[in-house]
């Protein structure tokens, strides 16, 4: 029975990967990017929002896995190996989304031959490349039960650099002040950390459920601790979210903020606020719900859904208002709904993530505590 379930699971993931490969062929080789709901106005859409979502979650996981080694809080050690492996799987998912966002990904070789050090995108590409290498090295060491403090600290520093550089990337264009670099350089690492806590809770508790391994008292205490930390991060995220709304949506008068004000009424915004922040925060604030496994899992899933919607809302908020010559013949704000091919990009990335993670969970003893 268990073998059939596993085969079904792999079959499902295989289907997701096949859809992704079909999308890759059609987007990059045959038809082109007209398959996406992209226009000359909405130049970045769901694939880049998914990239931001996955890459920040991966950086956030680096913060979580660094807690025992960088901050010396040893009770988080049982999470270390699973978290480190999850970082790799999620980063690969982020790269999958990026691959299907780029028009000519094979020209990425010019990152090495023709680097532009003034570009945040160059730094981000190099930092994420380095991050993946460091993660692989770090996990290899962890797997051999030898954890180097230096490598742990290095991973932590790169995670800070990547998540803050993403804020720089969005905040570079002076013409789009809605993406405030200073704000995003704080908001991105914080929300990445929140997504990471949600992912750790979700994947760890799912492991216990599917492997039919009951939670020990130590595990229960650890996950309760993690839930409290998750609640604190959600409160901070909500504060940032509200201030962003007040500053960009109410007090700012520059014409460029009109796009953001338009997004305040959108489904993506409400999904991010109510489903992604308010409801999970209320759930996690109730001690009885927080103590229950279903409460933790529900809050984590809702937060991740809301965070994804929030990433999309953030990307769109600086783009939905056409300006200059591209505003000719356009409505004051353009609307966006992803095409099935854009959804396939997300399904592809998620399938790759879950496939890698399942292989790791079954073969690499992710619950093992390293010394």
């Amino acid at each position, binding site marked *: 029975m268990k073998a059939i379930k596993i085969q079904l699971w792999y079959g499902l993931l295989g289907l997701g990967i096949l859809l992704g490969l079909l999308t890759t062929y059609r987007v990059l080789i045959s038809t082109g990017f007209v398959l996406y709901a*992209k226009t000359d106005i909405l130049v970045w859409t769901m694939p880049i929002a998914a990239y931001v979502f996955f890459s920040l979650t991966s950086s956030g996981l680096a913060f979580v896995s660094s807690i025992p080694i960088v901050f010396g809080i040893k009770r988080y050690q049982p999470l270390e190996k699973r978290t480190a492996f999850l970082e790799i799987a999620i980063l690969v998912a982020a790269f999958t989304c990026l691959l299907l966002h780029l028009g*000519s990904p094979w020209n*990425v070789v010019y990152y090495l031959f023709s680097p532009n050090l003034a570009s945040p995108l160059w730094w981000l590409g190099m930092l994420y490349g380095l991050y993946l290498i460091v993660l692989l090295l770090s996990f290899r060491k962890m797997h051999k039960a030898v954890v180097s403090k230096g490598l742990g600290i290095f991973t932590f520093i790169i995670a800070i650099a990547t998540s803050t550089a993403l804020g720089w990337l969005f905040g570079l264009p002076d013409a789009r002040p809605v993406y405030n670099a200073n704000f995003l350089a704080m908001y991105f690492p914080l929300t990445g950390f929140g997504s990471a806590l949600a992912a750790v809770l979700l994947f760890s508790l799912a492991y216990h459920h599917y492997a039919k391994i009951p939670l020990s008292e130590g595990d229960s205490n650890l996950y309760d601790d993690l839930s409290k930390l998750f609640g604190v991060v959600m409160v901070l995220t909500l504060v940032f979210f509200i201030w962003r709304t007040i500053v960009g949506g109410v007090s700012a008068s520059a014409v460029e903020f009109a796009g953001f004000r338009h997004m305040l009424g959108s489904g993506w915004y409400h999904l991010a606020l109510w489903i992604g922040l308010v409801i999970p925060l209320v759930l996690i604030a109730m001690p009885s719900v927080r103590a229950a496994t279903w409460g933790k899992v529900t809050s984590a899933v809702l937060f991740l859904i809301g965070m994804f919607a929030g990433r999309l809302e953030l990307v769109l908020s600086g783009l939905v208002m056409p300006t200059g010559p591209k505003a000719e013949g356009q409505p004051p704000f353009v609307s966006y709904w992803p095409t099935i091919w854009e959804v396939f990009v997300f399904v592809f990335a998620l399938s790759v993530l879950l496939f890698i993670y399942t292989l790791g969970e079954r073969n690499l003893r992710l619950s093992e505590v390293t010394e």
Partner: protein
Amino acid sequence: MPKYAMVIDLQRCVGCGACSIACRNENNVSEGIYWSNKITETSGTFPNVRFHYRPTLCNHCTNPPCVRGCPTKAMHKLDNGITMHDPDKCIGCRYCMFNCPYEVIYFNWQEPHKFWKDSRPVIEGGTSSPKEMAQKVNNGNGAPYSNPARGKTLPENRPKGVVEKCTFCDHRINVGEIPYCAEACPADARVFGDLDKPDSKVNQLLGKYKPYRLKERLGTQPNVYYIRSYNPAHYKRTKGGI
């Protein structure tokens, strides 16, 4: 080394769009892409309305955000001030489009000149197909009216998955000619020249009238200037020169 700039005289411009058509022909610009474009606005309330027409193109900024953001230097500055793009280095991230405050960079979402790849005859049994026509005229390289001279400094037709934009007709400048939009303008509203030559026509106009540039507050320092707006001042008609 020259520093090229364009002055657009809004009093002379009649909004005919000849600049845009000339640009398409000269640079083999594909459907949906506009190297030369316009911003139109209306003011007032009917029947007291006024129509404003402002031609636009890449501003070839001295401090260009597109160049600063490009990770592989595909978007780069030439010594003569032209902002140029190298499709061979372009990764298609569209960060330049994201950064450009003037919305003058376009992406090839699909194969260029797709219409001319269609093998269905326009009238079944009556006409040839677009693909056959393109094949007979220029071996199927883009549109049948493709201009081979464009291929001297850029691919004659830019491929799918990269961005493209106005180059001030750099291939024409290299042989001592002015951009084709300025050449084709029937009202001589576009004046092209070298800012480093004190007596150039562009400098004369900038000295004579109070020019303005788009979104100057952003500090990008555009090299496309606008002068006048339907006032009775006069100057001797000119196309400028190099």
